[in-house]
């Protein structure tokens, strides 16, 4: 009888999984994600051809590979999005521990592919970047810790999550992988902020981050060169940024035409870090705006839906995942338009990369599972109001 109260979500006992999933999932976000993947495949057709040619493979080798891994990622995403928050938490925590062990084992079994940072575990036919898988798991476990702190006489979860964060950030920075480290730190800060962090503490953390950046600038030549490149007023057209800027300008509003772009031949990272430049050059501002809008839809809709969420764990984990996803996209595109210093970060779900696309699928699956419509105690609100 109480289910007839206006505004509540009907919960039907014994309803099959799929119809309930379809009824409660955020269809806007889901469609945006699928469209992003489609755009990624479209761009891969253009951007990964030079790489394939360089490595002596058939032109669409990387497109096919991406389609395969992308399908795996999407299937994982759909399956995970059918889970309940409790199941999400369990899987997330278990996944976190596996990824964590893999990262700890990196110095022994990892490889650096000659790029100067030991980030990958190679299986011959494919390689895995455990730090990509660590991120969603980390968000889940940190949210769990923080949510526990919401209980009366609960454990000091925020402190635990902070210690865990510091440990992981140090671990990632040692690889060195400052990009992933800053993403982990950022998602923790978002969750801590949502969980009600005191403002003065947030300012302190911001200061510490700045100090850390300064330290990295002074200690790592690789890092310092990128920052210097950003701060200099003139763009050296031979740098990646120079090529990217030029590509965006060449593209204009409607692009130079499909397959007509040239930037993909000059940029070594055209298929990953600078894929947005390829999009801008070949399809113009229109596609770029669509991509930005799709990301904005996923992030902003998820955050708005989470505003209604009453369960602290769901709220925190969801916002952490959404923000990590959004900020990664923002950093990638911000670098290409030179709002941010050059930092190698993939455009989630669009850039080429097996680990990246599967891990993004898992993370988005978690996010979709957590943002599903659920009864939120509106009934007790209504009853309380009536009193």
């Amino acid at each position: 009888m109480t289910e007839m109260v206006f505004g509540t979500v009907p919960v039907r006992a014994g309803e099959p999984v799929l119809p309930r999933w379809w009824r409660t999932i955020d269809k806007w976000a889901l469609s945006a994600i699928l469209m992003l993947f489609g755009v990624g495949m479209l761009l891969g057709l253009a951007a990964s051809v030079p790489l394939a040619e360089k490595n002596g493979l058939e032109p669409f080798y990387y497109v096919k590979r991406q389609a395969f891994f992308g399908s795996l990622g999407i299937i994982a995403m759909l399956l995970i999005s059918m889970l309940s928050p409790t199941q999400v938490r369990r899987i997330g925590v278990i996944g976190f521990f596996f990824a964590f062990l893999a990262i700890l084992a990196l110095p022994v079994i990892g490889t650096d592919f000659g790029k100067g940072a030991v980030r990958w575990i190679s299986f011959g036919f494919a390689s895995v970047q455990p730090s990509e898988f660590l991120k969603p798991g980390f968000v889940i476990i940190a949210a769990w810790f923080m949510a526990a702190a919401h209980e009366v006489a609960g454990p000091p979860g925020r402190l635990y999550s902070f210690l865990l964060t510091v440990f992981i950030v140090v671990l990632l920075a040692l690889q060195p992988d400052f990009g992933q480290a800053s993403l982990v730190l950022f998602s923790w800060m978002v969750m801590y902020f949502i969980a009600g962090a005191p403002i003065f503490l947030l300012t302190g953390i911001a200061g510490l981050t700045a100090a850390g950046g300064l330290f990295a600038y002074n200690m790592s030549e690789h890092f310092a060169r990128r920052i210097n490149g950003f701060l200099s007023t003139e763009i050296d057209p031979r740098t990646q940024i120079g090529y990217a800027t030029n590509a965006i300008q060449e593209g204009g509003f409607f692009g130079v035409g499909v397959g007509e772009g040239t930037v993909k031949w000059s940029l070594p990272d055209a298929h990953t870090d600078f894929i947005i430049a390829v999009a801008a050059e070949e399809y113009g501002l229109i596609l770029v705006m669509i991509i930005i809008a799709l990301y904005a839809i996923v992030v902003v809709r998820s955050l708005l839906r989470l505003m209604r969420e009453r369960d602290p764990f769901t709220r925190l984990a969801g916002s952490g995942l959404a923000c990590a996803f959004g900020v990664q996209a923002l950093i990638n595109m911000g670098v290409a338009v030179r709002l941010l210093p050059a930092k190698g970060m993939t455009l989630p779900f669009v850039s080429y990369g097996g680990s990246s696309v599967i891990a993004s699928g898992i993370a988005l699956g978690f996010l979709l599972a957590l943002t599903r419509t659920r009864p939120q105690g509106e009934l007790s609100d209504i009853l309380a109001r009536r009193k």
Partner: protein
Amino acid sequence: MIRTPLRPLARILDARARGENPDAIERENIRLRGEALRERARTTAEGRLLMMGVLFLAAFVTVGLRMGTLAASTPEEPQLGDSAPAILAQRADITDREGRVLATNLVTHALYAQPPMLVDPVGTADKLVKIFPDLNHDRLVKDFTGARKFVWIKKKISPEQLQAVHDIGDPGLLFGPREMRLYPNGSVAAHVLGGARFGAEGVNSAEIVGVAGVEKAFDGWLRDPANKGAPLQLSIDLTVQAALEEVLDGGMKLMDAKGASAVLMDVHTGEIVAMASLPDFDPNDRPAPLTKGDASDSPLFNRAVQGVYELGSTFKIFAVAQALELGLVNPTTMIPSQSPMIFGRFRIHDFHNYGPQLSVTDVIVESSNVGTARIVQMIGPERQKDFLGKMGFLAPTSVELSEAPTGRPILPAKWSEISSMTIGYGHGLSASPLHLAAAYSTIANGGRRVEPTLVHDPRHQEGERVLSEATAKRALAMMRAVVTRGTASFGDVRGYQVAGKTGSADKVKPTGGYYKDKVMATFAGTFPVTDPKYVLILSLDEASTFVAGENRRTAGWTAVPVAAEVIRRVAPLLGLRPEGNTPDVLDGIQLVVAKAGSH
């Protein structure tokens, strides 16, 4: 905030009284508090989530706007491989005061290879080694067959070499046109010009960068396209410079000196008409700087500007001029001159003992250390330091050479009374010959300070007045007496009325103390004394000559005859007419002196 206690005593007692379980009350309160806590957290989170949402939206919009502005702007033409600022060619020429070229540019070519385009790398390397025997064949083959895409082979090649390489006919061999700096007069004025090298090098041009001398000091000006190719006109006169260098070189060899320097300066304008330092070098092919040993032994070292030496008795005239200016003495004042003069634990010796007293003029003419020390004692250290400062001896010269700031005078740590006495006769203060030239110009031009300069500018420098004209005249008269009847008698060039002062300073040992047998012999003079136009400073380093059964090291025997020869050679070039004591009878032949306006 007042919170309900988890176990409110009154309710628990009540419950106990009613026989209920009091723990239920605690559980109820914990539940209520937890709900309140969650509710508060939710309200906070609601606001903050909204804030995050808005922030993200704003960030996405920012990126979108930026993309939009970028897409709307026109792309710059990409400059592949040549992003550095365009290399400016056409470095301005350098000329002497008459417009004769001292430094100019010559179009030449650099030779480079693009190994991927080479048809026959090994054969090409063989042929290249035949043309350029200094190339290493194995190295060349390695470069040509390796992974390199670009190899510089030669930075400058001659037209004949260019043709020979062209005849190899390999498309991977390429020529980069560029300008090189050329000094057509070879080593003449080498230290003034300095030299240049290639800076940033591109395929189509190369930047020329001055490395020393005026080339470095005026590097920015010479490259500035705003000058529209106007040459840099120096105060140097090429003919005078060449004559000076030739005589100086001969004198240096004749007097067995290890080095020599000379400065010829216009006393009114401060223009350096000629300046030389030997040994010298060819600026077209600058030698490498010394990696060990004393930098002053390198031919690159400019003794006239960078070298600071104790210049000995040439300083005496400053003490006397100052004493005259202050009214402490006049030329006939008698000064005690008993040698040695004992001051505290110091003894001041003269070359000879000149007897109990000398007139001030004779102190200069005979070059008496004791007499000068007595005069300095009257002046006192503070006034002496102040005066020498006005003469320019306390700071490096401001001449337009990149080396000038390194010619910093060495001053005594403490300007005590005994230092002031030794400085009075030229020991204890080291300065460059150019410093001396500027100071002598002040006396010669009637008492005004002049700054030495290398840029042609015929205007008189109206510098600060250091001496009155009367004092300057009296000092000149004394210096003229040095030439007519004193230590510089070999310097009396007929017709040019030379005045001057000698200085034979024992050289300072690097370990402290003075060498007994190494002398820096200097002649500082001006001519013609009736209306001085030029000052000549000429120094010979460790000169000695065997004359009249004796090894002579004093300047009167070494530096003065060389200086006299210089004046004899350059005075006509400078446009000075011989005048005055032209004899009517020479070797018994009556000379016919043409009167102006008659044949």
